[in-house]
Every structure is written in structure tokens, then in C-alpha cells.
């Protein structure tokens, strides 16, 4: 009789413990929502779809993933949407550097990265400094010399003035005492067209964009904008190697959750991401798109979030962009 009671107590306490444990751990019970701030086909959208494909292929999540596109305001609409879900475990959003930069310069923005819950930094995007293949610049030194001889005459095609390409230009100008023009174009296509058509002398582009034009012999890469040489361009020296002492501005991509995300949901996604970056499919994805693995979570990520925001704030102020936060 006593044994029976003991067995019952044991069984009940076991289920209680299991029930208790289930209340502690988090697992998605509905289709998972990945939030991106670009439209379909845009950079973040393609990156998120790549990540979703790797996760689903390796069965790292129990539900299917769907991508929600919330475009507008350079990420501000998506950030605002995310902040409305404060305290909830979803959606999980994919951030890029504009999530850090735009709230600093736009007063219409309502929330910054410090209020959201960063989960993991996944990659750092390198870029390369390119010129036309028929131009006289064989390396960065040639370009800087030409800029010194003709102040304000050389032209760089790029995006908005708060973007990384202009920030790199400002740092390079400061380090060398030279000056050249920056011309903004709204899309990557128009920037490449400006370079190829001779309307601009240089362009900082993504390695994956550059590959095809190099293969066709149309452009030449004169520097890797990164702290070490890129695997895809082993013969291209970095800016530092060519004597330019400029700090590197990383272009991070990662995942972030709503403000006050429940701790168990955050831990769940941190674990899932940690597993994802170790899969061969993820490595293949990075290799194909020439992205650098830069996985970071936890307190190190917190430090990065603070220091990166501060670094951007200083760079923007120096560049003459009005900082409102």
C-alpha cells in the first residue's frame, strides 16, 4: 500500500516538475514571424529568407517561418511595429546598421536599438572600393594622389550621406587631408550605372555585386573595406595595409526582439541561432554571398550595441548630419 502511494506521489511530482519545466521553456506554437524592413527582394528580405531556409532545412524550429515586410522610413516603421509588441515573444526582426543609425538622426523615429532586445549579431558585411577597369587608379594611393592634385573634382557614387560609404569617405578624407565629391543615388543599380558610365570615379560596393562586373572585366577592386582581407579577394589589400589608418565601420546584420522580450523566448532564439550558424548550409550561404561570420550574443552583444551606437553618433556628428538622440 505504501509503495503504491509512494509511486503515485512520485508520478505526480514528476508531472508537476515536467509541467513546471514546460512553463519555463519557450517553443513557438504558431507559425513564426520574421520581420524585415525592406520590401520583397530587398537586402534584409533576401537575408531573412536565406536564414529561414537554413532553419527549416535543418529542422531547428518546430513551425514554419513567414516573412513580414514592414517597409518605410528606412527601418523606422518596422522598429515602431516591433516596439508595439513589447513584452511579447514575437516577432523576431532582422536588423541592419540602419536600425542603429536612423533613430539617431530622425526625430520621427520613436524607438532605438537600446530599447529593443538584441538577440544575436550574425554577420558583418564587408565592402570593396572599386573603380572602372579602364581608369588610371591601380590602388588607393593612386586615387588619393589624384584627389590631392584635384581637390573636389573626383566623384564617388553612393547612397545617402548617413550611409557607410559616405562615412568611410569622410574618415578617409580626414586621414589623408584630401577631398572629393559624394553623389547620392537612390538605388544600387543607378550607382553601378554611374560608375560604369563614367559619371563617377569610384563606388563602395558589396563584394557580391562586384564579382560579376570583375569577371566581365568592367571594374577593378582597389581596396577591401574591412579589418582583414576578404576570402573572395585574397589579392586585394585592405585600406589599412595601403597606409590608410581609418577605423573600420562594421555593417552588422542580426536578429532582435521586441522590448522586454520574455527571457525564455530570448534564450530560445539565442540557442536556435547558435545552432544555425554551425550548420554547413549556413556556412555555404555566407560563402555564396561573401558575408563574414560574426556571431555574437549575450553581454558581448550588449557591449557592441552600446559602442556601435556611440561610434555612429560621433561619425555622423563629424560628417555634419544632425543627430537628434
Amino acid at each position, binding site marked *: 500500500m505504501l509503495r503504491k502511494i509512494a509511486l503515485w506521489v512520485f508520478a505526480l511530482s514528476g508531472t508537476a516538475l515536467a509541467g513546471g519545466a514546460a512553463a519555463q521553456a519557450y517553443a513557438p506554437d504558431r507559425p513564426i514571424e520574421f520581420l524585415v524592413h525592406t520590401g520583397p527582394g530587398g537586402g534584409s528580405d533576401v537575408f531573412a529568407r536565406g536564414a529561414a531556409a537554413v532553419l527549416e532545412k535543418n529542422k531547428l524550429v518546430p513551425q514554419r517561418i513567414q516573412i513580414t515586410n514592414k517597409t518605410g522610413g528606412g527601418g523606422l516603421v518596422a522598429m515602431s511595429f516591433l516596439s508595439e509588441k513589447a513584452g511579447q515573444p514575437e516577432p523576431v526582426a532582422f536588423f541592419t546598421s540602419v536600425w542603429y543609425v536612423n533613430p539617431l538622426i530622425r526625430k520621427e523615429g520613436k524607438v532605438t536599438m537600446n530599447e529593443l532586445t538584441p538577440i544575436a549579431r550574425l554577420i558583418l558585411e564587408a565592402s570593396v572600393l572599386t573603380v572602372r577597369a579602364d581608369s588610371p587608379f591601380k590602388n588607393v594611393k593612386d586615387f588619393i594622389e589624384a584627389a590631392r592634385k584635384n581637390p573636389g573634382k573626383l*566623384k564617388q557614387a553612393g547612397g*545617402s550621406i548617413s550611409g557607410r560609404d559616405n562615412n568611410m569617405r569622410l574618415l578617409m578624407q580626414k586621414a589623408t587631408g584630401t577631398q572629393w565629391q559624394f553623389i547620392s543615388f537612390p538605388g544600387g543599380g*543607378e550607382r553601378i*550605372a*554611374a560608375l560604369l558610365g563614367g559619371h563617377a570615379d569610384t563606388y563602395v560596393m558589396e563584394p557580391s555585386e562586384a*564579382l*560579376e562586373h570583375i569577371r566581365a572585366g568592367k571594374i577593378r577592386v582597389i581596396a577591401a573595406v574591412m579589418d582583414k582581407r576578404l576570402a573572395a579577394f585574397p589579392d586585394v589589400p585592405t585600406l589599412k595595409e595601403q597606409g590608410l589608418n581609418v577605423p573600420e565601420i562594421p555593417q552588422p546584420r542580426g536578429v532582435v526582439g521586441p522590448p522586454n522580450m520574455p527571457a525564455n523566448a530570448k534564450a530560445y532564439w539565442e540557442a536556435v541561432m547558435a545552432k544555425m550558424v554551425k550548420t554547413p548550409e549556413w556556412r555555404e550561404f555566407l560563402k555564396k554571398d561573401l558575408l563574414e561570420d560574426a556571431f555574437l550574443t549575450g553581454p558581448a552583444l550588449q557591449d557592441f550595441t552600446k559602442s556601435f551606437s556611440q561610434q555612429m553618433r560621433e561619425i555622423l556628428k563629424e560628417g555634419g548630419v*544632425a543627430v537628434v538622440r
Partner: protein
Amino acid sequence: MDVIANLMQGFAVALAPANLLWCFVGVFFGTIVGILPGLGPSATVALLLPLTFSMPPTSALIMLCGIYYGAKYGGSTTSILLNVPGESASVVTCFDGYQMAKNGRGGAALGIAAISSFVAGTFGVVALMLIAPPIASFALAFGPPEYFGLMMFGLAMVALLAGRSMVKALIALLVGLWLAQSGIDLFTDTSRFTFGRMELLDGVDFIVVAVGVFALGEVLQNIERRDAGQVLPVPKGMRNLMPTLQDLKDCRFAFLNGSVVGFLVGVLPGAGSTIASFISYGIEKAVSRHPEKFGTGVPEGVAAPEGANNAETGGALVPLLTLGIPGSGTTAVLLAALILWGFRPGPLLIAENPALFWGLVASMYVGNVLLLVMNLPLVPLFAQILRLPAYVLFPLIFGIAMVGVYSASDSVFDMWLLAFFGLLGYAMAKLDYPPAPFILGFVLGDPMERALRQSLMMSGGELTVLVSRPLSATLLAFACIILLIPLLTRLNALRLKAIEQAE
């Protein structure tokens, strides 16, 4: 002949039963997407992208491109019958197309739109096939000063769209230009005219303005008349249900005009099909023997812009396939698709994947034929929509407009904007301000300002850069000529009157 041999191979790919089916699926969906305002080809292509991963890439590209140019066919239907632009490029078709419907010739308008789309779409494919690489080099020579020249040329069209009062047309143009400035300024990264609202950071959405001013404005005007009966006369008899031979003869130049202008403007990255249709409409009016009839419902006024926006698809594929440069929203998604399927878009894409390119080209011929066959017989059917009495039609238009805009923007704020522009359209109609210059200003404002500032950045502040380059100087000269046309016609009329009085 290399081209013929390649094309034969392409047809072998395109006429394979599976690819034929995908082509049909693509153009069918494209037509539907074009008819519905708000949902555009770029969003649809992006939505269907995940489905294509299990298909062979050539079939997938055939289908997605089918959606792209199919949408241009469908966009004219609601523009003509309901004054609701189904797609941003169809807004110019509203000018004369809806008037034709009001005159009881809605069927003829739909037929002309379909035929013009076919002719220009086929022209676009032929041009893509034959002259893609040299045209791409020409497009690269177009720098910011040339873009400015082109935009000024487009802006000069206001002289032709003015109607009775030039002053009112200019005011409408200026308001449109001002409205285009709302949003984040690319060069200084500051926000302009956002009134502190995050939703306006990207400016006002074109589809909100166009649907509001045209569709809702028209409905509000009609409601005022308290007509319980039919809004528009139902076309009766073959003369009004289908275009007549006379119509086709009148549109001979419009077909050519639309094809060439559409293709050339499409090749330029960043200049879209709306600009192409405006320019084509303007040129058609400028060379017409009866320009004062434009805006009252002339078939050329439908044929030219419709042709332009179809030829533009062929043009936009040129930079994509020859250089890997996307020229418009939809081609940007197609670029992402090509990359996801494992291709490497760039200057070597065609040489390394001839089956892909030629299969696509051949399928576009097939697709255009399919679309003509699908759309022409449906014209009398669509025209029966006009049978609906006002109290059914107006809520229908309102509903379609609102659902369409909301599905595109996902924002209640845009709904309020839509209401605002509907009231604006109504007020403009009552006060006799023409909507065409307003829309023209809104469409051109952004690219024109950008081109001017880029040109000045390039030249270090020298305005002469705009006239020192041959291409931009030519375009600006054309713009001046067009602006002088009303003055010249007035002078000519005075001269003729003087001669009359002397006799």
C-alpha cells in the same frame, strides 16, 4: 543569321508544353494583378518567388516575366471603365480612356489598349533581342544631366496638357511638384514636409494620389449629380464595342510612338513606365492634327501611353539582362530571383546562359500573343460592367480603391490620405483645375530634383553642365520647343486671322 538560330532554339524552349503553361499562368495572373489597383507586379512577383524554387529556373523566369508584362495589359481595364488606375503607369490612360467610355466607346478604348499593348510589347521584345547590348551602352551614357534633360522634356508636356487655363495648369503642376518633395531628402538626409509623421518619411505613395484624385474624385462628382441611373452609356453595336478600322488607322503613329518612347525610357534605370506614358502621350498630342481633342476621348490618347508602358517592360529587361542592373522595382525583384536561382546576373549572363535568355525572349512573343487573344474577346464582356447602376458601381469603385490601396500600403494613415486626395480631386474638378499636370508634377518632381542636384554636385555648382553635354542639351532644346508650341499656335492663329481680315 545567329539571331534567327538562337531564336529558333528559344522557341523550342518556350513552346515546350510545361513552359507554355507557365507562360499562360504568368500572363493570366499578371492581367488580374494589373486590373486590381494597389497590388502591383513587383509585389506579386515577390510573393510568388518562394513557389518558384521547385521549378526549373527558365520556367520560373518565363512565368514571373509573364506577370510583369501581363500587368501592363490589365492596368488599362479599370482605368478606362472606372477611372481607377490599376497600375501606376495606367494613370495616363485614364485621361482619354475614361472619356471614351463616357462617350459610349468604352469597348473601342479597351480594344485599342489591348492592340497597342500587343504591338508595343512585341516591339519591346524585338528590340531587346536585337539591340540589347548597344542600347545598354547608350543607357550608361545617360548621366544626371541627361536625366534632367529628359525630365524637363517630360515637364514641358504641361504646355500640352493645359486645357483652357494655362495658369491653373501651372498651379496644379507646382502643387504636384511640391507634394513630391514630401519625405526624406536623399542628399541631406533630412525630412521634408513630413509634419512629424513617420508614415510620410517615404513621401506620399503614388497610388494613393492617383486613385484618390481620379477614382474617388470622379465618384464624388457623380454622386453630386444624384444620378440613380447608369453612369456611363453601355456601348452598343460593334462600332463601339470594338475599335474600328478608322481608329486603328488614326493610331498608326501612336503605336510607333508608344513603342519607341516606352522602350527607350524603360532602358534608363530609374525612369519608370509612368514617365514613359506621359512623354508618349505628350508627343502624340504635339504631332496630332487635332490636339484640342485630346482629353475628350481620342483613341490615340489611349494607344500611345498604353503602348509606352508595355514597351517599357522590354526596355527595363535590357539593363537587367545585359548588365545585372535593375531599372525598376519589379526588375529588382527579378534580379534577386535570378541570384536565388543560382545565376550570376551581370555582363556575362546572356553569353553563359543562352537558353535562359532566348527562351525568355521567345516566351515573351508567345506571352504577348496569349494576352491579345485573352484580352480582345473579353472586351465586350468587360464593357458590360458599365451596365451596373450607379448605386452599385460607386460602392464597388470605392471598395476596390480602398482595398487596393490598403493592401499595398498596410497603413490606415494611407486610407486617410486617400480620402484627402479624393476630396482634392473633387475640388480640382469643381474649380476646373486639370488633374493631369498635377500628377505630372508629382511623378517628375522627385527624379527631376535628384537629377539636377546630382548634376550640380558633379560639376561643382556649375549650371552649364546641363547644356555643355550634347545629349542633355538636345533634350532641353526639345523641351523648349514643346513649351513654345502654345505660343506658336496662338501666333499662327493670329496670323491667319489677320490674313482673313485683310481679304
